[in-house]
């Protein structure tokens, strides 16, 4: 285990203010859990619909703490040679062939399984780093249940065991964020090791703030209208509700079109930016035009 915990954050309020300064608007839950993650030295499992700023949270925390972001994008079929470490076979082969005659077997053996021949992958890199890092394990639900086990050691003990080298312990405890789109249930073992944070679509007030912060030049009243329309559309029964990034795209488009107030026609003509399915667009258009 790692000896000391260095606290990065003073208080929940400080986390929230700090994130606000770099244009990430955290709500109570987000700031609180980020603070706890630092205090308890535990990873955070961030779950929620696509496009609600889960990955952005890790990026923003990295920026705020001045840490380097190390990202592991998960995918189906990922294995330890992509996530943890890999021996550099080619180099090892060259080393063996270079002086076939001279060295004894043990010399070569000790030599080719040393740091020089080790390729670090994101997880190993994160715990061996000297500078502060934030580790982002993105879309962890894409790997198979069996592969999840790869993550368990690093998440609870902050160490990696390499059969030929022994155990490598972290020099410092990095902040770890795992994101999941919830396409499958993660294993109990993984969940137990993490703090759980559900990021949902923002409240109307928060979405308005986000639009104001992220889209320069938008007026208060337009931002308010945008947030209201989006909330109204999200309340419909859709295949895919508009995400925050789509709201922002919409806001930028309206700005480019020099639109100051949204009326029915404008809303209908630009719906395709918010919604991606034809049936959803038809439904929303119908709903917007028929009141009462």
């Amino acid at each position: 285990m790692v000896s000391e915990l260095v606290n990065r954050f003073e208080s929940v309020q400080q986390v929230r203010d700090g994130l606000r300064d770099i244009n990430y608007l955290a709500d109570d839950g987000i700031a609180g859990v980020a603070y706890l993650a630092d205090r308890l030295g535990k990873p955070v499992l961030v779950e929620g619909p696509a496009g609600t700023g889960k990955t952005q949270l890790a990026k923003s925390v990295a920026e705020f703490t001045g840490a380097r972001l190390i990202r592991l994008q998960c995918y189906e079929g990922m294995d330890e040679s992509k996530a943890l470490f890999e021996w550099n076979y080619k180099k090892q082969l060259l080393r063996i062939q270079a002086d076939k005659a001279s060295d004894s077997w043990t010399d070569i053996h000790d030599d080719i399984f040393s740091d020089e021949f080790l390729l670090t992958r994101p997880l190993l890199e994160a715990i061996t780093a000297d500078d502060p890092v934030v580790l982002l394990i993105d879309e962890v639900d894409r790997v198979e249940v069996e592969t999840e086990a790869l993550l368990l050691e690093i998440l609870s003990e902050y160490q990696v065991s390499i059969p030929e080298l022994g155990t490598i312990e972290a020099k410092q405890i990095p902040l770890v964020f795992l994101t999941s789109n919830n396409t499958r249930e993660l294993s109990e073992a993984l969940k137990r090791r993490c703090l759980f944070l559900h990021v949902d679509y923002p409240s109307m007030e928060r979405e308005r703030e986000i639009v104001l912060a992220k889209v320069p030049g938008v007026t208060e009243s337009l931002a308010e209208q945008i947030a209201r329309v989006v909330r109204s559309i999200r309340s419909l029964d859709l295949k895919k509700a508009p995400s925050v990034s789509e709201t922002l795209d919409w806001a930028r488009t309206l700005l480019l079109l020099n639109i100051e107030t949204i009326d029915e026609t404008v809303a209908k003509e630009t719906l395709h930016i918010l919604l991606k399915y034809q049936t959803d667009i038809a439904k929303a258009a119908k709903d917007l035009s028929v009141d009462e």
Partner: protein
Amino acid sequence: MSSTETRSMLDLLNGFVIQLREAGLPVSLTENLDAMDAVQHIPIEDREAFKYALGATLIKNQAHWRSFETVFEVYFSLRGPEYKLANADGESSELDDLWREMQDASQEGDGSGGAGSLDALTPEEIAHLLMQALMQGDQALMKALARQAVQRFAGMEPGRPVGGTYYLYRTLRNLDLDGMLAKMVDAANQGQESDSGRLEQRLEREEFEHRITEFKAEVEAEIRRRLVADRGAEAMAKTLRKPLPEDVEFMHASREEMVSLRKALQPLTRKLAARLARKRKHGRKGPLDFRNTVRHSLSYGGVPAEPKFKYPRPAKPELMVVADISGSVAAFARFTLMLVYAISNQFSKVRSFVFIDGIDEVTDYFKATEDITEAIHRVNTEADVVWVDGHSDYGHAFEVFWERYGKDISPKTTVLLLGDARNNYHASQSWVIKEMRMKARHVYWLNPEPKSYWNTGDSIVGEYGNFTDGVYECRNLRQLEGFVEKLA
């Protein structure tokens, strides 16, 4: 924290975890320890942060959050001040305040916050004030008014064995929020004149509705707080507990539960589809693929170090769903159809039939639109399922099914029969099922009734069941999901 405070906090948390477990939420020992760690860093006085800290450590599934929140509100609604640090003795505890308020409601309050001055107002003035607060979105005033409204209208008496919904109803009836909404919309329209478009008006209205919902939640919370003060947290927790969405029974779901069921269905089908696709792809290794192995051996200097295998692609099953859509089992049929069609790409073909005493094919409704909800709506309104009197007649429905569609059943077909098999003492015609099973790959029966009710009264599920490959109890989403996974 001193050791005594840590102790009392430990007891407090332990009690909370017991309540959570009783509500059906899984909490492991390590999670309990994490929560204990977490509360060292978050003061209990900061109620929201404290809730999120406990939630992050104890609850690892978003679907459980609502249950968690309810247990939290009840358990901690009156705890907290007593665990305050030194200054707790300076103030009277909240509990005492509440008792005083409840006992001499007519007298002037103790002047805490704005509540004291509200006591003097007439009901009309209260209504007027509330409307203003709602229109301006004044949170503090809304809160104070919620307290005032409960105190004035709910008529709560200590020790009276009435549920919270009764008090909620009484309070809201006196406030007439629907009427207020109409007035608010009118007032807003007058203020802005005609230049605001219809969209603007509509959004304004939605904003008001949203605030009214918030206000209702506030009233509900206040009632709960008072009930807890009266009866104690443990007793209340039992009455307020709500089952998890996946455990709600189809046949007894309330309207509100139906909505939450429908919401839970969508992520569930997404998960199920992903899992099934993965299952098809993996875990089956076929014979050696010689050509592929030789090709890959070239990069190892001709040594076949990486053997390659053929992956068989098993044929997707064909599905025929035959569902009873009469009265009490309608909801179950609806959910099953929605689930089946949401993952219809896992089957090579899906055909669906609905019946009461007549039977009709509804496959086209699902083909015509991508929107499953709309298709279900059409099934309920347009399908021709009544033959004589609109009471379930499984025998006749099966007979007609066999006549018209029996020839389409092939050895690749799996037939799903949905219903409670309550046949109103008609002829069973169970020979149809027997014939079906001879022709089809599998025949399954799903029954939404609890197993203990099977074969009681006019239920003849046993008679049909004899001829199927299995009868499954499907009372809730969890069981339904389990069955469908097995099927595909």
